């Protein structure tokens, strides 16, 4: 091989004219972390569609009592099992109640359970996972051992037990769902905290005399927010799923509480004669759950390629 040495002499370089020196000029607008993530999220069309659907759903579900001419319980015996029409876009059920309105009322409870349990899981998961990951050592081993033991048993069995003890109300349903689903969040937080605490900024904070609590909350958890938010979005659909399937089988919420599960249970006896009634509920549920998953995936991509 030829060994060539380059000699740098002054005449190889050309001096830049003063007018072209503008090192202070910023070519790209500086973005905050959230703005950056939002820009990436917007590029994902499916995730954006999911988000729009969800926002519309939430608004409809919240304002349904103001918007609809019918109430949830209002019966119209002359209009039983009606097919979809202008007055009743989704038709009516066996007692002449408007299905669209009922589905929206059901969405209130189902979505509320989904979001509320996700938030509870967030708190428990951050505390448990944060402590376990940050303290490490024996504490971590014991805490993870407890999780393994809880996790080895199917969620269903705990849920059934809780519902039998505390009755078929909304709070006990939420307790039952939270009892095992926080584990996922705790594991996620723990992994994040464990890798982040080895980083230099965490050492720097320690050297500057920050307390452990401050490091954990201000430096580690904040930096792990991306994966945590993704995990959070994924918990909502799974909570909705658990609630609806238990209520559908008749062992979940009390049948007088309108949720998607209990509504589907209600329509079960006309599934062969008026299948369209249950199809509405199924379709709306599928769309909601799909949207939540798409948004979760989109958020994952948008927030995680930061690092």
């Amino acid at each position, binding site marked *: 091989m030829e060994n060539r040495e380059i000699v740098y002499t002054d005449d190889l370089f050309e001096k830049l004219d003063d007018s072209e020196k503008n090192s202070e000029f910023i070519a790209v607008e500086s973005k905050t972390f959230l703005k950056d993530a939002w820009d990436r999220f917007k590029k994902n069309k499916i995730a954006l569609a999911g988000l729009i659907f969800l926002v519309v759903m939430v608004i409809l579900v919240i304002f349904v009592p103001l918007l609809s001419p019918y109430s949830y319980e209002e019966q119209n015996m002359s209009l039983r099992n009606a097919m979809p029409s202008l007055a009743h876009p989704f038709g009516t059920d066996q007692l002449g109640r408007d299905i669209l309105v009922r589905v929206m009322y059901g969405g209130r409870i189902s979505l509320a359970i989904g979001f509320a349990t996700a938030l509870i899981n967030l708190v428990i998961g951050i505390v448990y996972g944060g402590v376990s990951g940050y303290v490490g050592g024996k504490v971590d081993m014991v805490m993870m051992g407890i999780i393994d*033991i809880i996790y*080895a048993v*199917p969620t269903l*069995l705990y849920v*059934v037990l809780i519902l039998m*003890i505390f009755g078929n109300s909304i709070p006990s349903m939420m307790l039952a769902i939270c009892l095992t689903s926080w584990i996922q969040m705790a594991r996620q937080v723990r992994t994040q905290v464990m890798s982040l605490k080895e980083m230099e900024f965490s050492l720097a904070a320690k050297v500057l005399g920050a307390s452990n609590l401050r490091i954990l909350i201000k430096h580690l958890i904040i930096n792990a927010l991306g994966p945590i938010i993704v995990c959070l979005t994924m918990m909502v659909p799974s909570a909705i799923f658990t609630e609806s399937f238990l209520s559908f089988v*008749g062992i979940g919420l009390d049948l007088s509480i309108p949720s998607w599960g209990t509504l589907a249970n209600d329509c079960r006896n006309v599934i062969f004669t008026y299948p369209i009634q249950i199809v509405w509920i199924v379709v709306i549920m599928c769309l909601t759950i*799909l949207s939540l998953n798409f948004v979760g995936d989109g958020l994952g991509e948008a927030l995680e390629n930061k690092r």
Partner: protein
Amino acid sequence: MLKYIIKKLLIGCLTLFVLATITFFGMKAMPGNPFSQDNRALSQEAYEALEAKYGLDKPVTEQYVIYMTNALHGDFGESISKKGQQVADIIISRFPVTAKLGLVAFAIALVVGLVFGIISALTKRRVTNNVITMIATMGVSIPGFLLAILMMILFGVKLGWLPVVGLDSWKHYIMPALALSFSSISMITRLTRSSLKDVMNKDYITLARSKGTKEVMVTVKHGLKNALLPVITYCGPMFAGLITGSLVIETLFSIPGIGREFTSSITNRDYTLVMGLTLFFGAIVIIMNIISDVVAAIIDPRIKLGK
């Protein structure tokens, strides 16, 4: 290896013991007692006789010891709602139905999931890949029971191709098994695809190819064998999913299996049966988890050294 298996078994036993304890005291904490459900008023003597018969007059700790010793001998007591029937006998008579359906679903999930995963990892055609990705995304998000309802309406009611009640011929298996395995198919597809893609880029694959090994051999012997690990570890949790699913699928399709028995025992507040079934379900899932862990450790000895 033996040490690893023994360790797993011990943890499994501990988990089962914890589950049994929680279930027992949970049932004791439940409001009311099994006999107050009866509509006819019981005389004081009859009530006491019943309590004595089921051993409810003894102190709770003693009941606990008795229950645990009996459970160890496979005796879960007598069903409360079905007079004269032993819980163990009910489980034995119902379990084969669920096991058959579960195994069919398991086989479908494994075969279809692997085939989809392999195709999607190796194909160069974008259309094929997109279709499989779409199915996989839907499968992960859409709950199996919603799919079951839709299939039931479409193929059972509208088209009349498939029977919707019972489990008599092979045709009866199609819909329940598909609905049961749907989410597992997607999970296995995803797992196989990502791990196979990973493996196919490894150096030893290039080496095998450069030695002139046929492409089929390279894929199966060198690629797939190494890519299977995540699928095997997933098999444990998959059984938990199948059991949870069997509850709603069996209720929906009126299949006389153990899942439907579980739902009806909960509705009937048949405490002894619920406890027996809970332990049974828990034991199956724990055993399946141990098996999949051990198989994974046999295939990849690095696992048992701890992650």
